[in-house]
């Protein structure tokens, strides 16, 4: 095996799992709710409980990935550059002062997709390759 091949193989081995773990995260809504795009600010407002109304006027119902899923940590890192401990502390303040509730926490990706299909106001984040025809991508999150 030439040095070049070895190098290429090594490179692939390093890059492949990374590419797998860093698949694009996308913010998705119900495909029939009429929303084409959402700004980063409005997604922040919805998931951080500041303003949960979609441009169409219907209440936004954010859905979180299950605890422990890498998507969840990555989402909040990309959204507000915070880790989950900070997000947790943020919600502790709002819960114990009787304000907004945190997003509903789903048990699986299947449940997320199911909620997106059934609830007009549902909004969630998934890996791009998990999106199916029942959902529409309204924001792509950059690494």
């Amino acid at each position: 095996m030439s040095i070049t091949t070895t190098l290429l193989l090594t490179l692939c081995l390093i890059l492949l799992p990374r590419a797998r773990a860093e698949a694009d995260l996308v913010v998705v809504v119900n495909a029939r709710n009429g929303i084409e795009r959402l700004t980063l600010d409005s997604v922040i407002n919805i998931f951080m409980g500041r303003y949960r109304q979609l441009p169409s006027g219907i209440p936004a119902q954010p859905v979180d990935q299950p605890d422990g899923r890498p998507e969840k940590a990555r989402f909040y890192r990309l959204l507000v550059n915070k880790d989950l401990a900070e997000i947790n502390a943020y919600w502790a303040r709002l819960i114990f002062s009787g304000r907004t509730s945190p997003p509903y926490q789903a048990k699986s990706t299947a449940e997320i997709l199911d909620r997106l299909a059934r609830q007009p106001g549902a909004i969630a984040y998934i890996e791009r390759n998990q999106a199916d025809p029942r959902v529409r991508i309204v924001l792509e999150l950059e690494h």
Partner: protein
Amino acid sequence: MNGKNKMKQGHHLLTALALALSMAAVNPAGAADQSQEDVAGHRLSLHGFGTLGLARSDDDDAQFVRDLSQPSGLTSRWSTKVDSMIGLQAGYRFNDKLEGVLQVVSRYHSEGNFSPEVSWAFLRYDPDPTASVRIGRLGTEFYMLADSRLVGYANLTVRPPPDYFGPLVLSYIDGIDGAKSVPVGNGLLRGKLFTGVSPEKMSLSDGLYWNMSGSLVVGGHLDYLTGPWQIRIGQTRVRFDKDLPINEYTGLDITGQVPEMSVVGKWTRYDSLGVVYDNSPFQLQLMLSRIDQGSAAFEDSRAGYAIASYRTGNVTPFLGYSRTKSDANHFNSTPPLEQATAAFLSASTHSDQHTWFLGARWDLRKDLDLKAQVDWVRGSPGSVFPFRAETPSWDGHMTVFSLALDYVF
């Protein structure tokens, strides 16, 4: 309507809420149809928070308290008294728009013990996602972050800076509040108004209490949130219903002879400005306030603090500075004895000090953190209001060492 009736009414409301919540607890799903239950998620929620605090000062000439609701504070011996607490909260969601919340907290407070108090008990109605109305017992929000000052896990420092939050002895009111959010530019404008009646009392020296029940509280604030910035201006006014027990304490007719010492029917005003810049991993908090007393029984004061922090992995070191200063009241006219006594009593509310504090929060795991902090208090010997049990040799200087383990569940 007199204070007693208001109190009674408050109790009825609390009883009704407690009953509603306990019925909800017994029958969580109720007769609601299954799809509704599914859409609303879990109807009944139970949460809790707590802090196990350990602290001491290096000075026995004054006792350091978290706020003036505490009748005694830290000495040079390690104590768990001032910061330890536990809170339990139950919420019941009737539907998308209506929710009931009951919170009970046990902490060291004006009774001189840890007897539990109902700190929140309200029904919240959200006519749409941008508006909300709450009625019942509500935590006071005189200043930004003040309504969550007992929840250690939600905060960076071991305790909210006492120079700033110490004079806030009203923790809750029985009343109503309303909030509304409107997008403005790239940001969000939020307004809130509240009013209610206090059911609380404040502990003074020598086992005396000031009954604050029946005091009328009216206030509001405006927040603007944009990008990493949150800015708030707020004002709260309090009209006290009952005088301080200064006549009983002195055996003199102080409020009769020096009418400006009476607080009854006079408005005290709390103005505040808060700025939070949260651009993780860097965060900065800046708060300013002014308390304009309606009577000469207390000195007018100004206070402020700043905290800067930088998160590195699970550890967030912080550095803070707080300052409080009050203006002496002057008494002329009146009989000399009463005048001198009034001046003495008023001066017992004097503060003139600053505090540097340095510490770190360590997020041990989900829902659990450990904090360590040192406070260096530097003030004049006449700065006595923020403390308890000062001796004549109090020099205004103190160092406080604190550890806290905070959790939520």
